[in-house]
């Protein structure tokens, strides 16, 4: 019996194509799971970000900032005749 190279290659090609198909199908599924998992992680992080943004908003509310500045940094409101020096060209205070 003579070895028929063309037939062999054809069969090989079909087998490789079939395996590739299965492989890509599996890869698609695996990536699907991964994306799903990542989307869940993203959701958790989004949730954390929301909570942190809210905490930040609470911490920086004007009333608190003013109270904090008055208590710890000796902030005083500018008075009527008070002179406030602001840096201008060529001078440093």
């Amino acid at each position, binding site marked *: 019996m003579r070895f028929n190279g063309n037939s062999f290659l054809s069969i090989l090609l079909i087998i490789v194509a079939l395996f590739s198909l299965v492989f890509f199908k599996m890869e698609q*599924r695996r*990536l*699907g*799971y991964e*994306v*799903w998992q990542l*989307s869940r992680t993203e959701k958790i992080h989004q*949730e*954390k970000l*929301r*909570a942190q*943004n*809210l905490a930040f*908003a*609470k911490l*920086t*509310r*004007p*009333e608190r900032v*003013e109270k904090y500045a008055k208590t710890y940094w000796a902030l005083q409101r*500018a008075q*009527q*005749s008070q*002179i406030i*020096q602001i840096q*201008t*060209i*060529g*001078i*440093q205070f």
Partner: protein
Amino acid sequence: MKIRISLLFLTFCFVWISLLVRTSYLQIFPNEKLSKLMDKQSQTAITLNNRRGKIYDRNTKELAASITSYSLYADPSLIKEQNELSRSLSKVLKIKASSISKKIKNTKKKFVWIQRRLPQAKMEKIKELKLKGIGFVKEAKRIYPNEKLLSQVLGFVGSQGRGLEGLEAKFDEYLSGKKIKLKLQKDARGRPLLINGKVFTESPDGYDLHLTVDLDLQYQLEKELLKAVEDFSAESAVGVVLEAQSSRVLAMANIPNFDPNYPLRTAAQFRRNRSVTDPFEPGSTLKTFTLAAALKEGKYQPNSRIFCENGKFKIGRRTISEADSKHKFKWLTLSEVLAKSSNIGTSKIAIGLGAASIKSHFLDFGFYQKLSTDLIGESRGLLPKLPWKKHLLANISFGHGIATTPLQIANAYASIANGGVLKKPYIVESITDGTNRVIEAYGPKSIRRVVSKEVANKLRILLSQVTLPGGTGRNAQVSGYPVAGKTGTAQKVKTNGRGYEPGAYISSFAGFVPANSPKYVIYIAVDKPEKAFYGSEVAAPVFSRLAKYALLKDSSAPVMVNKKNILAINTDTKVIQIKKNAIEKLESNVKVKQWQRMPKLTGLDLRELIKRVKGQRLDIQVLGKGYVFATEPKEGESLLHRKAIKVHFKKAME
């Protein structure tokens, strides 16, 4: 044998063909029942839960947001060691173990809440304990991080997540969002297979609201109103700040306010936005619009003289007197009528114009009509039907017998400030989705022109004189900036029965700054102050402090009263020429006094220099370090009409 084989073959063929036909039938022809069965086997439904949108101020600071919280429940029938569970939970929840034990005592119950709306951190801590018989349910929680700030405007949401008051109620449709249910194919373990891109593209969340409000200005307004209520032992106070050119609401406050995180702790009357819901008699702040009508009709000019009857003006059996019984004015010009807040002068102007004309002009200025579509529960106010008797017309002309909301008054003043156009006040700038795509955008909208530019400019000058020495609004002055405004002291109408409550007043001030180029329109009203009651004593100082804060916050340069600024508020070329000539004539006659000349500053250090020029309202440009060696202008030169001086410093005296 052959026949048998043939029969067997035919039987097989028949069976296989039957199976093939049946299979083809099932596959090709639609069958609802089978489709459902197939879907059930291979599909899973997931729900994308909606989350309420956020509310931001004009600088994208969060005013309201929703986060996921976790409500802890227990199934007492599954709990074996109740005491141990109570002790463990009490440590995390920071509540008494006995109170938890009480809740889970009845083992016949299948479901009891232990604590609602816990933060994620606490939920994770409890999960780490791995306790049996407890579980969590996800619930959305609305948070207002600034607590009482802007509370009546924002409103609040109920336990079911629906907006019940304020913007939360008005824009509930936009804010709430909609749950989305998606069907996905699942695998053998029930995990969804990613074949539906909608999971990523569809968002069930509500839209975000972007307001025109400035949070810092809002805080300052609320702080000042609270201070006024405390200082004068008042019942309540309201305040509105509008952007002069566009009628954007920059701040809107009502004191007392409430914490929308816990709305039920406050009485309902303090939860509504009284700046738009509660009309009251505005008092003298309305005189401005009677005078506007007079100028618009052309029957009066700012220097027209009116006889003010020596403080008593009889109309039939009734007598109109001035707000302060000591005031017995004789002849006043129109501008003095406003500056001195003469009731009699205003009444006579109104009688001269007639009731129909006054009513029509008041309607033009936006009274007795709803202005904003953003704010819930807005009142039109009250304006009696025509015909008006003479004494009623007189009363209405100075702000009694008519009721307006604070927003209406502020917006009417804004129309004068912006050059005569009544604009629609609004508080929602835009609505965006989660990706910042603009769904709806709002902007300034003109309703109508109410007075010409020329009349508006005249009114601005008249209102500026109210805050000058001799006017009632001196306390509203802001150093460095011209202020235009009007005081108001209105008697309070009895809530039951006719007439006025004795000794009860609403003190108010309405105005705008800077008068020459208005940026902010501010209205302040303090209800039933006890320690003083004149608008000039109670509301004007609040206006002054708030206006000063607003101007400093946006770094508005102080205004020097000079030729340019005076002329800038009148566009009529003839008037400009007349004024130019008058100013030039005045300048040529003015002798420069000693204190108006450049003093000797050479050799002074910076501190001494500042002491020397203090109070001269000069901008000093400092150049170099050390001691003064030269000045521009030079010593002894005139300082008249100078905005700034230059001072050159050297390191050491030579």
